[in-house]
């Protein structure tokens, strides 16, 4: 895996050093990641490709702090991440990362605008700036007319755009 193009080399937004991850499968142990070194500098875009089951999602989960690793090191902005402190990681992830999932995971009990505003709400009480930003983002992804819509009434494409708007809500350093 390799990141392309660079303007400012240090500190990398994400860096992994010899990451190893295994999963037990019955009596056997499947080694999914075998000593991965990876760097992603600020302003760069990286594409992670591989066959199905090769560990792409596991790797993404690990670099976003969602999954523990067996050995190796993970660094965010040059700082080593201790994956045991889940609560602290949650706060950092909330402010620095925007995650878009394959299945979007919009919450059905919230309307579209409330879903986009959710990351701001998880950080504390959203003010008028955050409320306006949620509206702005929905406007940018072409869903300004659907603010109060139930997410269940949206098409797949609309849900995808809403998930993207939600990922951008907290102005993350990494998406």
């Amino acid at each position: 895996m390799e990141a392309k193009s660079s303007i400012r080399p240090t500190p990398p937004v994400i860096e992994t050093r010899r990451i190893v991850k295994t999963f037990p499968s019955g009596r056997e142990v499947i080694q999914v990641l075998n000593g991965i070194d990876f760097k992603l500098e600020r302003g760069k875009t990286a594409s992670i490709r591989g066959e199905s089951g090769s560990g792409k999602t596991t790797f993404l989960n690990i670099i976003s702090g969602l999954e523990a690793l067996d050995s190796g090191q993970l660094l965010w902005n040059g700082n080593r991440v201790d994956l045991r402190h889940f609560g602290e990681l949650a706060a950092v992830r909330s402010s620095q990362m925007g995650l878009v999932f394959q299945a979007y995971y919009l919450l059905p009990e919230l309307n579209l605008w409330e879903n986009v505003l959710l990351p701001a709400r998880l950080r504390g009480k959203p003010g008028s700036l955050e409320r306006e930003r949620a509206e702005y983002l929905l406007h940018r992804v072409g869903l300004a007319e659907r603010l109060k819509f139930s997410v269940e009434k949206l098409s797949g494409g609309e849900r995808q755009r809403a998930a993207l708007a939600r990922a951008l809500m907290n102005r993350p350093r990494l998406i």
Partner: protein
Amino acid sequence: MPWSLYLALKQLFPSGRNVSFFSILSIAGVSLGVCLLIVVLSVMNGFQKEIRDKIVETTGHLRVEAGSVIYDYDGIMEALLGLEYRGENVIQAVSPYAYGFVIVQNRKVPVFPAIRGVDIAYEAEIVPFNKFLISGSVDDLDNDSVIISSGLARKIGAHQGDVLELASPLIIEKIKEDEIMLPREVRVAGVFETGWTVIDNNTLFCTLTLMQEFYGLEDGIHGLTIRLADGYDEEVDLITGKVNEMIAQGADFPLGVRAFSWLDLNRDFLFVLQLEKSVMFFLLLFVILVSAFAITSTLLITVVRKTREIGLLAAKGAKPIGLVACYTFQGFVLGVGGAVLGIAFALLALANRNEIVGIVANIFNKEEALIRFYKFTHLPAHYQSNDFVWVVLCAITISTLAGLIPAFRASRMKPASALRDE
């Protein structure tokens, strides 16, 4: 509002969608328990209040007794009527009495009722005889007549105007002295019924003079009954203490004189009434406990259904403690909703309780049975604020605790595993 509480409310009452059926069922369960508890406790309070009022109405608030015969009681009566409590004369009336048992015979049916000799001029200020009389008149009561309770009248088949034979327990004493004391013939001046079974079953009233003659008391009495002025019912224990303080300091009082409140005299009976109420509370609390299980299972299903959403929240920065708060708060809200609705239903049911009893009695055609066995056609009810507070506190606490198991399950979910459920 913290996100955990916000999301809890949104899960219970989603934007633009109907309230979850599970939430409605859970609230209905808690409200049913709360409603039942409030209705049963209030009706029991009503019965208790009726009984307590009846005891005070028939026996007065306090009694002063010495355990022996008291002579020269005029000074005691005067001192009692002059007693001040918080700067007020709280004793409204004092009446002397003598008390014992007699042998009564009518048409060769002997019974052994309690007899109470009173000075009707004083006693009428404490016991509303005219209200209780079924037949006859208090004005007809003289030293050759008695007023008998309805139960006693039924037992011996006596009516107003009949002549009864009364024999004093002194007969035995006289026999020891080789003397014969013949039974005394007295007329039934009236029949009364108070509604207080203890008195109605087996009691007989006569004049104090007749009783003194019967028991050989000369001008002595066994005690004094006291009625307090209106508004001092709740302070009867304090006033009893004040009376005993006065007795202890007064040189005019005979040795051994002591005041007892009606609460002291009926403490065991009142304890049983309170125990009945506590047992009812405990048993009916199980209705709320069953509802709590419904809340737990509902929220557990929600947690399982929303596994990926919980994973998403964790991925987006939600802390485990926030997830605990979110699901515990849902239990709390269901408890509050159930308690509010339960109280509303209970007040509605209690406001229409007599109509409900009437309908039930009509359906089973048993209105007469109600009157015959329970002596009522209407249900009494009395609201006590501490009952409401306890019921609401129990309902909310149990419901909140019911949310803890699903809450901890949600907080222990690992985001990556939860999202992998996809």
